[in-house]
């Protein structure tokens, strides 16, 4: 894993990617710091962190788009997958390399609260909490990016899909608000979900009997739940979509609250996508 991590970190700085990422990130955060804290005469540094979260939309695809797609395209995955290292080590190595670059960049921004401390008292705990939340949010987005990179061998497609996916997660709270809460539409939603899962299964395995079995099991499950506890359906769309609402969970951090639930959520979220990435690569060998 260390070998992969090392290689990816070097490769960020062998190309312009690492430099562009760092300078873009530092430029934007510097502008917001100057505007909010220096010119705005505000002592609240966490406001800066929460207002610059939008740059993830641009910088995450930048560092994740080629992580796996490029290996597939250049056929260098043949070297990695035929050497005695595990797929999980390959993916984790790449993930931690992207996290490392992100963390290092974030480390540079510590200079901002230090500047702030010259002008008065700052709450170290609050800022530390804000940083942890900000880092975890970024780590979650990076895991989504690396997953999308494993789905295609084209960096540009990976980048575009990542931006769109992150954007949808971005406006998730708005989407949730527009969704109906009643029982009928919830059941329709679950029905569509079952069909989608069946279709996905069918297109990846071409096994018609198993696909039918899955949809039948899904339908029976829906009916059983409806007979036993129909109340479960109320507002289920909101709850399911809510799983992908990362920003909402980040709100507490920017208010200076260290939210353990959110920490667990972000870590679980990241590992879920890392797991999916590993499965995607493993599965590709079977098709």
């Amino acid at each position, binding site marked *: 894993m*260390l*070998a*992969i991590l*090392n*290689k990816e970190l*070097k*490769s960020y700085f*062998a*190309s312009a990617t690492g430099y562009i990422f760092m300078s873009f990130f530092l430029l934007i955060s510097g502008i917001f710091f100057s505007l909010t804290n220096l010119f705005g005469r505000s002592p609240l540094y966490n406001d800066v962190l929460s207002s610059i979260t939008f740059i993830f939309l641009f910088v995450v695809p930048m560092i994740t788009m080629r992580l796996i797609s490029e290996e597939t395209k*250049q*056929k*260098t*995955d*043949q*070297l*990695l*997958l*035929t*050497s*005695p*290292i*595990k797929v999980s080590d390959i993916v984790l190595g790449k993930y931690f390399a992207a996290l490392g670059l992100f963390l290092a960049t974030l480390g540079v921004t510590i200079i901002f609260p230090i500047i702030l401390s010259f002008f008065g008292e700052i709450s170290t705990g609050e800022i530390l909490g804000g940083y942890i939340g900000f880092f975890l949010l970024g780590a979650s987005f990076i895991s989504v990016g690396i997953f999308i990179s494993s789905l295609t061998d084209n960096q540009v497609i990976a980048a575009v899909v990542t931006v769109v996916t992150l954007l949808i997660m971005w406006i998730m709270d708005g989407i949730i608000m527009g969704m109906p809460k009643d029982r009928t539409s919830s059941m329709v939603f679950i029905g569509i979900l079952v069909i989608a899962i069946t279709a996905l299964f069918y297109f990846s395995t*071409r096994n018609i009997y198993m696909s039918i079995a899955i949809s039948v099991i899904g339908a029976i499950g829906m009916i059983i739940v409806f007979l036993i506890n129909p109340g479960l359906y109320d507002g289920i769309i909101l709850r399911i979509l809510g799983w992908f609402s990362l920003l909402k969970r980040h709100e507490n951090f920017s208010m200076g609250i260290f939210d353990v639930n959110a920490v667990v959520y972000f870590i679980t979220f990241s590992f879920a996508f890392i797991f999916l990435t590993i499965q995607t690569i493993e599965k590709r*060998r*079977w098709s």
Partner: protein
Amino acid sequence: MNVGGKNLIEINNLTKNYGQYKAVDNVNFTVKKGEILGFLGPNGAGKSTTMNIITGYISATEGTVKVDGFDVLEQPGEVKKRIGYLPELPPLYMDMTVGEYLKFVCNIKKVASSSQKDTLDKVMNAVKISDMKSRLIKNLSKGYKQRVGLAQAMIGDPEVLILDEPTVGLDPKQIIEIRNVIKNLGKKHTIILSSHILSEVSAVCDRVLIINKGKVVASDTPENLSKRLSQSNRMVLRAKGPKQEILKIIKGIENIKMAEIQGVREPETVDILVEGSEDADIREALFYTLVRADYPILMMKSMDLTLEEIFLQVTNAKEENGHASNIK
């Protein structure tokens, strides 16, 4: 060479389907320790697919692959430790230098850091790329990239080397050099290499496996294969004189199965393709007959069977006998 030891690689009923298409169809073979096995077949015959399955890069639809007793599905780590693989396209990172790249390969192949320097020196000497150590891979020529790929496969001193068309894209001098490298490696390693060039396989390999359309159609030593080649009695000759006249005379000679005009390459001469019946040497008869007729022979050379023709021969023989010769 230590041929004749235990079976190091065992392939049983290997099948790989891509949808309806069978890329590899029920392939069986074994490779003994110390043997150099050549895969011979046209493009798309299933050579690369078979190699990709043995190395664990892709999985088989059916069948088993065992290397040194370990199943590639059940203990992939143990199998991968024992194999060095040079794929069709060398898996190189273009933005690394040769030294960095080989060091990275050392790391992922878990070569102890204390012996990494020795390993690097050894493999770079073996393929003669020591001068290129600090060059960026993207700036190397195709031949050198191929060598770096070969060096990469040798790292970690694996028992088995699997080389997919190792000499493709090299110039003739480099081809000879790489062949010698492979021959040298064969003293210590078990090697499977693929090629679509017959002479290459026969120059290097102890045994040849001919693959066509995903099936093993023949498995033989290069000597036996060339014997099969010399049985064919086809030659092209160029004689001076009127076309039709010469053709008529040649057709009149005993043991001539077929003769046809190939065209005129030099003025006042004719090129004729002649095939004699098997087990008969028609060269002398051709020479004396044409001399007597006062039509001098300016050139006469035997025609090598092309790979396609060997396939036809082998597959035809298979149909006639009901089974391929010597399939293990």
